[in-house]
C-alpha cells in the first residue's frame, strides 16, 4: 500500500518533466532517424573517450614499443590500422585519445557556458532595467566578434598564464558561447514573463524567485538540451580550429584532431593521405552526430516544426451506438 502511494507521488512530481519530454517518444520519420543516429554516433565517441585506455592500442604520443621505434609515415597496416605520422605516432591511437580530449573540453565549456549564461539570462530577462540594457549591449558587442577570432585571442592570452591546455580551450570556447546562451534564455524568459499565467501568479503575490523557479525555469529548460547539443557541435569545431592553428590543447598535453590535421597538410603535398583523412573524418563524424542529435531533439520538441502524426481516417469504423433496448426496462 505504501509503495503504491509513493509511486503515485513520484508520478505526480515528475509529470512536468515527463510531459516535457513526451514528444520524443512520438517522434516520427526523419526526425526520429536523426535523433537515434545522432545519439548513436555521439555515444560511440563518448564510449571511445571513456574507455580510451582499454581501446587504444598505444599511447597518444607513443612513438616506440619495446625499444623499437615505429616506422615513420607508414601506410595503414595490421599493426597500425590507420598508419603512422611523421613523428612515428600511431594515427588510430591518437584518434581514440583525441576523443577524450574533445569531449573533456566540450563538456567543460558547456558547463561553464550554462553556469554563466543561463543565470545571467534569467536575471536579465526577468528583472530588466539598467542591468538588462547594459548586458544586452555588451553581449551584442560580443556577437560582433567573429567567434573564432575571439576564441583565438583568448586562448592566445591565456595560453601563457594557464597551464592546462584543456582549460584554456574550454574557457575560450565558453566566452564565445555565453552571449548565445544569454540571448536565448533572456528572450525566452521575456516571452514567458508576459504570459497570462505568470501575470496571474504575480497578481496573487508570488515572489519572483518562486515564479522563476516554477514557471520560467521549466519552460526555458526545455530549450536547453537543443541549444546545448548544437553548441557542443560548434564547440568541437572551434576546438579543432584552435588546435589547427596551434592554440588550446598543446601536443604534449594530449591528442587533438585539429592539430593532427595541421601536421598533415605538409604530408598532403607528397600524397600521404592517412595522417589527415582519419582525424578529419573523426571530426566530421562527431560533429555530425552531435548536430543530428540536436536537430532531432529540436524537431521533436519544438511544436512549430513538429509534424503531427496522423492515422488514416476510416469512415467505416466504429458505427454509432446501436439499439440498446435493454437499457429501457423501467
Amino acid at each position, binding site marked *: 500500500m505504501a509503495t503504491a502511494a509513493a509511486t503515485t507521488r513520484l508520478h505526480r512530481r515528475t509529470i512536468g518533466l515527463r510531459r516535457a519530454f513526451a514528444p520524443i517518444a512520438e517522434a516520427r*520519420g*526523419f526526425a526520429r*532517424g536523426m535523433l537515434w543516429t545522432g545519439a548513436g554516433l555521439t555515444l560511440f565517441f563518448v564510449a571511445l573517450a571513456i574507455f580510451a585506455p582499454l581501446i587504444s592500442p598505444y599511447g597518444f604520443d607513443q612513438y616506440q614499443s619495446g625499444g623499437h621505434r615505429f616506422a615513420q609515415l607508414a601506410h595503414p597496416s595490421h599493426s597500425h590500422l590507420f598508419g603512422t605520422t611523421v613523428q612515428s605516432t600511431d594515427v588510430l591511437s591518437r584518434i581514440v585519445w583525441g576523443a577524450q580530449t574533445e569531449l573533456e573540453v566540450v563538456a567543460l565549456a558547456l558547463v561553464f557556458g550554462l553556469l554563466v549564461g543561463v543565470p545571467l539570462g534569467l536575471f536579465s530577462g526577468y528583472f530588466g532595467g539598467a542591468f538588462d540594457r547594459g548586458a544586452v*549591449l*555588451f553581449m*551584442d*558587442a*560580443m*556577437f*560582433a*566578434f*567573429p*567567434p*573564432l*577570432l575571439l576564441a*583565438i*585571442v*583568448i586562448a*592566445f*592570452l591565456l595560453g*601563457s*598564464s594557464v597551464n592546462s591546455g584543456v582549460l584554456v580551450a574550454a574557457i575560450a570556447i565558453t566566452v564565445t558561447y555565453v552571449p548565445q546562451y544569454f540571448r536565448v534564455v533572456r528572450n525566452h524568459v521575456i516571452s514567458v514573463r508576459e504570459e497570462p499565467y505568470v501575470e496571474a501568479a504575480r497578481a496573487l503575490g508570488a515572489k519572483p524567485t518562486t515564479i522563476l523557479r516554477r514557471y520560467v525555469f521549466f519552460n526555458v529548460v526545455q530549450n536547453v538540451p537543443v541549444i546545448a547539443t548544437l553548441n557542443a*557541435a560548434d564547440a568541437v*569545431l572551434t576546438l*579543432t*580550429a584552435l588546435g*589547427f*592553428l*596551434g592554440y588550446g590543447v598543446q601536443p604534449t598535453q594530449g591528442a587533438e584532431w*585539429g592539430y593532427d*590535421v*595541421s601536421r*598533415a*597538410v605538409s604530408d*598532403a*603535398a607528397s*600524397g600521404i*593521405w592517412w595522417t*589527415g*583523412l582519419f582525424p*578529419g573524418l573523426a*571530426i*566530421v*563524424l*562527431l*560533429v*555530425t552526430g552531435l*548536430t*543530428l542529435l540536436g*536537430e532531432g531533439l529540436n524537431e521533436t520538441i519544438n511544436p*512549430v*516544426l513538429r*509534424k503531427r502524426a496522423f492515422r488514416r481516417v476510416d469512415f467505416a469504423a466504429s458505427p454509432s451506438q446501436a439499439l440498446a433496448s435493454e437499457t429501457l426496462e423501467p
Partner: protein
Amino acid sequence: MGVQGSSLKRYAITRLALVIPMLFILLTLVFVLMRVAPGNPVSASLGGHVPPAVIKQISHQLGYDKPLYTQYGHYMWDVVRGNFGTTISDRRSVGSIILVNGAATLELTFFAVIVALVVGLVVGLLAGRYRDSPIDAGGRLFGIVVYATPVFFLGLLAQLVFGVWLNWLPTSDQASPITQALLKTHTNIFFVDAIIDGNWGALWDVTKHLILPATTLGLVYGGVFIRLIRINVIRTLKEDYIEAARARGINERSVVYRHAFKNALVPVVTVIGLQLALLLGGAILTETTFNWPGLGHELYIYLQNRDYAAVQGIVVLFGLVVVLASIVIDFVNAFIDPRVRY
C-alpha cells in the same frame, strides 16, 4: 516612393545612432583584452632579439610607457581618425596591411558568399518545399555533414584530390608569381584588377586560384544556410495568408514561389549579416590552409610573433566590418520588408 523614402531615411539614421555605443564597447573590449596579457607588448614581440635599452626606446616611441587611460584615449582617437596603429615587429602601418591583405580576404569571402548562397538557397528551398520527402532528407543531411566538415579538413581534401591526385587546380596563393608580377595594382583585388587591365590570362589564373579556397569556404557556410532557409520556408508555408491564397485558387506553384519563398527569404538577409562574423572566422582558417595572403593569414603570423599592436589593429577591423555589415543588412531588410521601418 515619397513616403517610403523618408521612412527609410529615418530608419537608417536611428540605426546608425544605435551603433555608436556598440562600437564603443567593442573597441574598449579589444583594448582591454590586449592589455590583459602580462608584460610589455614590445618586449613580448621583440624581446630576446633586441637589447633591453632598445626595447625601452621603442616602448617610449610607441607610447606604451604612458598611463593606461592615456593610452586608451590615444587609441580611441586614432581609431576614429582611421589610424589602426603600427606593427611592432616589422613597423608596417596596420592601415596598409588592411588595404593590401584586406583586399585579398575580401576577394575570397565575396566569392565564398556567392557559393554559399547558391548552395544554401537551392538546396534549402527545395528541402523546405518538399518537406519530409527524400529530397528533403538528402538536402538536410548534406547540409549537416558539410557544416560538420572543418574548413581546413575540406581544404586538405580538396588539395589532395584536385591538387595532388588530379592536378587540375593550384592549391595555394592568390595567383601565380608571374601573374602577380605582371598585374598592375588598382584596387588590390586581383580579380577586379585583371578585369580593369583587360588581362584575360591573368583573370583566368586568378580564377583558378580562387576556385578551391572559395568553394571550400562557401560550401561549409552553405550548410548553415540550408538549415535556415528550409526552416523559414516551412514556417512560411504554415502562415495564414498562404491558406487564404489557396482559398482564392492560386495554384501551388505560385503559392510556393511568389508567396512562400519570397517571405521566407526575408530573415535570410539578416542571417547573412550574422553569419558574416562566422565567415570571417572561417576565412582565417581557409587562408592558413591555402596560404592565401589575406588578413586572416597575416593575423596568424602576427599572433605567432606576439605582435600585439598588429593583432589589435586587425581584430578591431574585423569587429568594425561585422558591425558595419550588420547595419547594411538591416538597411536592406528595411527595404525589402516594409513593416520593419516602423
